[in-house]
């Protein structure tokens, strides 16, 4: 459950954001769909609730782009599960997407909280 006062965000994340989150999660090592979803939820303090209905198509889409690769493995409690790992292309894509994301966030923030007159902007 998310902490009180913080409304979990359901539904459509910004286009491409889920891809970025998945790639970031896989930096730490290979994981299966269940782990990826839980990792994202935990890392975001349960603010981001991953819809499974969009997680699996997203995994499929990223795999088609060859940013991640998959293999069948055995889970912590001895279940067969499909594991995903980051490919070299995925790693560079992650760097690229991250910088784009930061640029985007910075830009949105500048619009929402304009700097006081006279002071210079960050960049």
């Amino acid at each position, binding site marked *: 459950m998310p902490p009180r006062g913080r409304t979990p965000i359901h539904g459509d994340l910004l286009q491409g954001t889920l891809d970025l989150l998945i790639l970031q999660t896989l930096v730490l090592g290979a994981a*299966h769909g*269940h782990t990826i979803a839980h990792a994202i939820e935990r890392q975001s303090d349960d603010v981001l609730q991953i819809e*499974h209905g969009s997680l699996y*198509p997203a995994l*499929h*889409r990223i795999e*088609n782009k060859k940013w991640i690769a998959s293999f069948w493995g055995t889970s912590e*409690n001895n279940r*067969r599960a*499909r594991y995903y790992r980051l490919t070299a292309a995925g790693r560079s894509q992650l760097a690229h997407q991250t910088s784009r994301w930061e640029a985007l966030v910075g830009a949105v923030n500048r619009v929402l909280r304009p700097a006081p007159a006279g002071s210079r902007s960050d960049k």
Partner: protein
Amino acid sequence: MSWWRYILRARWDRERRRELESYVEIETDDNIARGMSPADARAAAIRKLGNRTLVLEEVYTMNTLGWLDTTWRDLRYGARVLWRQPAFTIVAVLSLTLGVGANTAIFQLIDTVRLRTLPVEAPHELARITIDSGDGGRTGRFTSRYSQLTYPLYEQVRDQQKSFSSLAAWGPVVLDLATAGESRPAQGLWVSGNFFATLGVTPVLGRLIGPDEDRRNCPTPAAVISYPFWQREYAGRPDVIGQTLRLDGHAFEIAGVTPASFFGVEVGRQFEVALPLCTERQVRGLARSALDSGDWWWLAGFGRLKPGVTVQHAEAELKALSAPIFAATLPTGYVTRDADNYKKFVLKAGPVDKGFSALRGDYGTPLLLLLGLAGLVLLIACGNLASLMLARASAREHEMAVRLAIGASRWALVRQLMSESLIVAAAGAICGAWLAHGLSAALLSFLSTPQNPLMLDLTQNWRVLGFTSGLAILTCLLFGLVPAVRATRTAPVNAMRASGRGLTDGRGRFTLRRALVIGQLAVSLVLLVGALLFVRTFQNLATVDVGFTTAGIVAADFDFRRANVAPEGQREFQRSLLERIKAMPGITGATPVSIVPVSGGGWNQGLVIDGKPQEGYPNVNQVGGEYFELLDIPLLNGRTFNDQDTPTSPKVAVVTAAFVERYLKGRDPIGRVFHFDVGPGEPNLAMHVVGVVADTKYSDVRTENSPLVFLAYSQDPAPGASLTTLVRMASPDANITREAVALAGRVSSNMLVTVAYLERQMAEALGRERLMAMLSGFFGGLALLLAAVGLYGVMSYMVQQRRQEIGIRMALGAGRGRVLRMVLRESAVLVTVGVIAGAGLALFSSRYAESLLFGLTATDPLTIVLSVIGLTAIGAGASAIPAWRAARVEPTTALRE
């Protein structure tokens, strides 16, 4: 989109399914760890996952090609629907097969005759040379329909022109493979030395005729044979090179074989042997060579244009060269009139990339016309199919309404209905293409005669395939689109309600079907008029009064050129041969002739009467005195030829009534004298008219009777080394070929015999008209049948729809006669409108057939009246059954339905 992913989409679907299952298991484990019961744990896990099918579907659409998937699904569904309605499917496919088959077969012939280029190197660079002879026309000897040049003309043009990199000449000739007995004709070509080089044809074996062989009196006569001839006569043996081939009794050495694809330059005729022009004199065995004759038209010329030179350039150059060339080649024997004409001739150039073809002229228009007729039949068939589709659409209205109501898009439904049509159209096209293959071969063998063998390469090519697929798509649109759009137009709520009872059906769909039937009736009237025009043309030609008896008449030609008869002994040889022919069993008489009547050959000459040259050129024939009695030609005045007419007695002539009418009007023709208009140096003898006979046809049954002069065969100054006779058999159906060959063998071991049965030959000469009559008759019948079926279908449907109404009418007191009349009146309206529209269409379109008709005009009133009566009768017949059925409706049952 990746095809690879598309192919693997089923595998991915399984993978993702397993993956989701593993998620559920892991989540269930977690839930159990949190203390839930296993059943609750699993249910919670599944709940958390959400709509599993949706996930799988999303992944699936990522992998698939949407349009391909839906198309395939539509096609499969369509095939299932059609499979469940075999009667409809069979009728639909069968009518399309017939329609597409007929169209494709005719198109295939058009393709080979009109569209295909010669199988030689860069055919579009080739151009032919023709002569514009103005009004005067050419004079001299002509050997074929391609004869455009004399050899002296060819030489002049070849040496003076600068537009062509090489200029070749050729001429067709029929040679004899047999040296004795019954003749065995071979299709030969005279070719100039650069003929094969100009075309860019290379031999498959040996060498081809080359420029060395272009000299007069060529030393070693070489022959080139065609691939089919090599296969047929020599079984494709490679040692054929250097072997001796006897043609008309002369020995030729086989030099090479042309490729299988090369049939010559004449479309429709496969050449068998090609000989150098220089061997002409030797083969013909004449004193004067055609190479030196300025009035012997036996060659066709063509050349390969130099790079960058167009046909127009070449023509301009040839035009400029014309005057000096014709002045330089003026034949010596011409009378002033002919010489003046000759000097005004102009050389022309034209494209010849599709080859030389007399077929194109003879059959070009008829084939296009037949394609038009076949297209109309297909149109009528499509009308029937559209009508059937409409009927099916109303039967499936409920299904469509339900589909629309639960959210199918209209486009999806149209697409699905169209895919049913597409399957039917494709099946019809495939069967039709298969049918066409046999049909076109049958048509070809129908047109091919022993005198005029036709050889066309009928293999399917991209043009024919394109035509057939185009037809399939067009028919599919024609009969499928409107019903499909209409079927999906009804608002669901109306359709659902209408399927209950007690509501009258809207008339909209019905109007369309009635319009279709009217169109079908109109078009079938056009076809009927066409069919009658051609059938009556053929009938007129077949029964035309030629003015003499043709039944049991045989033209037997005895060629004794190689029997070593000295020129001075030829007359006596002919006389004794004729005596022996007359003594043959089974014949009642025989006469020598120069020209076999109505066989296509002819001879005409200008006249001088009382010193004045006369208008026109009367036809001439040279016959024995028995000719008139043998052929039952009535003698109107004077006498025919007798034994007193010898080479030394005064020249006599028997003329026809038309001749008297034209040239000897006023006075008693017997004893009148005329001269032939002959060139300088030729003997000009007075001809004394001794008799007048009734008019007869001369070379062709299609031409009107024109003035005709008969000369006495016995007075021929040079009888020649062959004797052509007309023989009358005692029984019209007898066969005397074997006796004639045996007789020739007894007289000389080196005599050749050709026997032609006049009636059969005349029938073969009408091949084109017979083809038109047969096919248009077939199409007309088919159209009539299809239109009748269409009318019957619509009337039955109407009666079926109005059963309750009719029941109520009858319950209220309408008699059976009244109901019958009501239905018949409905169909009478359709037939009347159709017939009026059709008559207008027929009057408008029949003029395209004008040039192919004989003995009647394109707007022949009798033909149109007969067609209208025929169509009306068929229409009445087709609506009688539904009307009768309507009259037998039992009010009690109809109302209870």
